[in-house]
């Protein structure tokens, strides 16, 4: 279990570099030169920061907290994580690179898109994720993927980052 995972953490830097190259080639292919980046709290923000830094994007990174757009409020109530969303730019007519750490069921991305559209109407949204794992429950796909991981239902990926540690990825079991 951990052997196939080790490469991800050791190669994290080159995986992030490759993601940057993929994002840039996609944006270039569509003639986009003024994209902005948004990371989904919390894990997606660390990944986004790493990408944002490598790409030297002129505008600051946006942070999206999707707690109020989740679809499980009537089952589990208010999600404990409550750092507010903070978008330092207007969303109307912008090309957005949306970043998350793990794409699994697709529900987080659904919530993120709904929230994004309450801020305004983006010109386009490109989805970049560090880890793509099987188990989709909604028709959501990533445009840029760092690494595909075949995980079973008891395993999950946890991303940690600054200020406590530099960005790193670990595999956990429930």
């Amino acid at each position: 279990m951990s052997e196939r995972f080790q490469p991800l953490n050791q190669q994290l830097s080159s995986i992030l570099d490759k993601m940057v190259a993929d994002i840039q080639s996609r944006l270039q292919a569509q003639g986009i030169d003024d994209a902005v980046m948004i990371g989904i709290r919390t894990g997606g923000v660390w990944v986004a920061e790493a990408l944002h830094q490598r790409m030297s994007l002129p505008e600051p990174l946006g942070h999206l907290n999707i707690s109020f757009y989740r679809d499980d409020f009537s089952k589990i109530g208010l999600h404990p994580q409550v750092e507010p969303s903070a978008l330092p730019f207007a969303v109307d007519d912008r090309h957005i690179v949306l970043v998350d750490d793990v794409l699994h069921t697709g529900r987080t991305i659904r919530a993120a898109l709904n929230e994004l559209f309450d801020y305004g109407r983006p010109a386009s949204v490109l989805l970049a994720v560090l880890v793509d794992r099987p188990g989709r429950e909604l028709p959501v796909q990533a445009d840029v993927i760092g690494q595909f991981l075949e995980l079973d239902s008891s395993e999950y990926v946890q991303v940690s980052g600054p200020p406590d540690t530099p960005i790193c990825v670990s595999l956990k079991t429930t």
Partner: protein
Amino acid sequence: MNSIQFDERGRLKHFISIEGLSRELLTKILDVAESFIEVKDRKVKKVPLLRGKSIINLFFEPSTRTRTTFEMAAKGLSADVLNFNISASSTSKGESLTDMLHNLEAMYCDMFVVRHAASGAAHFIAQNVSHHVHVVNAGDGCHEHPTQAMLDVLTIRQYKGDFAPLKVAIVGDILHSRVARSLIYALNTLGTEEVRIIAPRTLLPLNAQDMGVSVYENLRDGLQDVDVVVMLRLQRERMQSALLPNEHEFFQFYGLNEDVLAEAKPDVIVMHPGPINRGVEIASSVADGEQSVILRQVSNGIAVRMAVMAMTLGAAI
């Protein structure tokens, strides 16, 4: 104390009083409220959290501002809001309160926001509603006004950060003030260094010494070195005896003007739950001055009420 506020799994179900709530829970409410603040700056000024829920404002006492902020908070969560006009309702036709509640419940509502002239009313209502209905106290008699206290401490936290080193003075009609009572509980629970109440003897509660506050009858002395001043409105509608000679005299001895405010710390903030009576408890120059955060309190009121509604209608903690 007031364990009716929690369900069988220890989650916040009703929001009736600050008394009985832990420091962790109060802090959590403030944190959740902070994340609702920016919602009102968006293009679409709401989140879908309570979409499809029905919230009924049951205001037995007149109020435009509190009812309006509760309505804006509910709408900010995408809930449907109904304002129940009590004087035109069937209670004036002799219907009992419990019958009215059961009738309203049969219309599939999820929450009552209640303001009533009788202390304990919200508690009574919470005891008599069906299991799935939540109650938020918008002020019951002279007892508590918990959402006001929460928006007050949120405002204090925004300007001052930590509660531990603060001296907070509450001035005015303490006796009749449910705002004061809730605020005193909140400040003490959050670990404030010193809470002072400043009022003429006739407007001090008899058990003032047991409230965990320092008591002052002289405004100038009481304001020495304070970080926060909270001015209360004279609750004329609740006064049943001649407790004051006249309002002019009240303003002379207990009104906040720039001169007496100078006794406090230079970075003191001035608060008031509103509506303000200019020239009675507060001078215009102070109410409109740089140290006044009165308007910030109003904005915070919406965020705090959104937090309370979201946390009670969903599982909290």
